[in-house]
């Protein structure tokens, strides 16, 4: 898949410390439109912190973040809020709003952000529910959906804002094994439709199949970056090789 030249998001020299631990230690990365980036690494390596810096949920202590060529002031919450309409995020624990039905979950942000009026939003939401194959669950409350179904609704909710890029933070880690496939299949089909994505995951099969580039992180640093064939087959760094061997 051809990706455009100028990066959509670019992060340079990010540093973030929580107390005494450095979650991010001079991390730089970039993603271009249409690219699929997968981030792997052991827990505590800083993967989640990294992608949370890319939509402003975590503000780095140092470093520069550029979105579409425009520098983002790290402390400007207002700027981030507007940017979040273009950056969607899917969390490990799906965190649907339990007091709203599936369709209400999906329409809340577009309507309240002024993106579209309610009737139009509901139409779009229904189309999204069909896309994630949950059309019949539109009026169900999250408590009555399985984990896999909730995660798919969460993905639809993120898509409702028509983002330019989707961030995934270990989307299948909290799911029972039999539900992982349905979510991964959806993510694969989104990738096939050309969605720009950054995915933090442990699912190596998915990474190998979908990624244009893979980043391996350890202890707050990017150890190695490259196409999946390199990361999973012909590693440059011994640490990468050991991690991949452990996971395989």
């Amino acid at each position, binding site marked *: 898949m051809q990706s455009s030249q100028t990066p959509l998001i670019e992060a340079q020299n990010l540093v973030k410390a*929580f107390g005494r*631990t450095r*979650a991010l230690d001079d991390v730089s990365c970039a993603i271009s439109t249409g690219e699929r980036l997968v981030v792997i690494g052991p*827990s*505590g*390596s*800083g*993967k*989640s*912190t990294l992608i949370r810096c890319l*939509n402003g*949920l975590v503000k780095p202590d140092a470093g520069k973040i550029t979105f579409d060529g425009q520098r983002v002031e790290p402390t400007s919450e207002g700027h981030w*809020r*507007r*940017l*979040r*309409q273009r950056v*969607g*995020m899917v*969390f*490990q*624990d*799906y*965190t*649907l*709003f*339990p*007091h*709203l*039905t599936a369709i209400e979950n999906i329409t*809340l*942000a577009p309507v*309240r*952000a002024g993106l579209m009026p309610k009737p139009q939003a509901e139409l779009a939401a229904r189309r999204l529910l069909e896309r994630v194959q949950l059309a019949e669950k539109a009026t169900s*409350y*999250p*408590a*009555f959906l399985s*984990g896999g179904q*909730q995660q798919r609704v969460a993905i639809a*909710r*993120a898509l409702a*804002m028509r983002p330019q890029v989707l961030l995934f933070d*270990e989307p299948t*880690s*909290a*799911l*029972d094994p039999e539900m992982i496939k349905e979510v991964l299949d959806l993510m694969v089909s989104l990738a096939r439709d050309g969605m720009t994505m950054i995915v933090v995951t442990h699912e190596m099969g998915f990474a190998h199949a979908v990624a244009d580039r893979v980043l391996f992180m350890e202890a707050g640093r990017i150890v190695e970056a490259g196409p999946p064939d390199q990361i999973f087959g012909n590693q440059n760094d011994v640490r990468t090789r050991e991690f991949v061997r452990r996971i395989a």
Partner: protein
Amino acid sequence: MPMALLLDNLGFFLTGLEFTIRLALLTLVCAIGVSLLIGLMSVSQWRALRIAALCYVEFWRDIPLLVNLLFIYFGAPLVGVPLKPFTAALLSLTLWGGANGAEIVRGGINAIGRHQFVSATALGLKRWQIYRYVVLPQALMPILPPMTGLCTTLVQATSLASLLGVNEFFRIAQIVVERTTMQSGHSPAFLIYGFALLVYFAICSALTWLSRYFEQRLQKTGHSAIAAPRGFKESA
């Protein structure tokens, strides 16, 4: 014969009850308003507001309600604002009820996990929108039961206004007891105060029943929190 005493004074009791209900309703409305205001202040992003809320709550909660009441009634004239007993009682109960209610509101908001807030933020919603559409609707569930308890306590606390001379229900009961004791020589305290207890019991039980009804209505929609996913961990 005891029944005769009650029936004779029935009209009298009813005017007292009317006073009680009026004071109670006004107090509840004002106290809930103050609770929301101070409760939201205590989770605000501005430290100054949080500290102000904390001081307010600690002060009005730690002092006995009676002392609070007497202080407002006797102290107000000193700052040049003499208060009628009814107003003093209303103000005092509102301040006290608001302090306790604020703690309940704060607890309810905090009970809604941070993930809900983060998730809504990631969707690009503004802070006030997150509270209005995501956090507060869910906070109703953990807030409702203790808030009902507070409301029944406030209704009961209207009886304190009798000590300031407000002619609410309990004061009427006291007057009837005193009058009858003087007239007939023996005290109907057992009967009259027993009757008073039963009336308050009826009112508060009805309130509690009403709130349980609303709790069940809330449960039917998805308001009780979804179960946390298994094995979830906050990875760095």
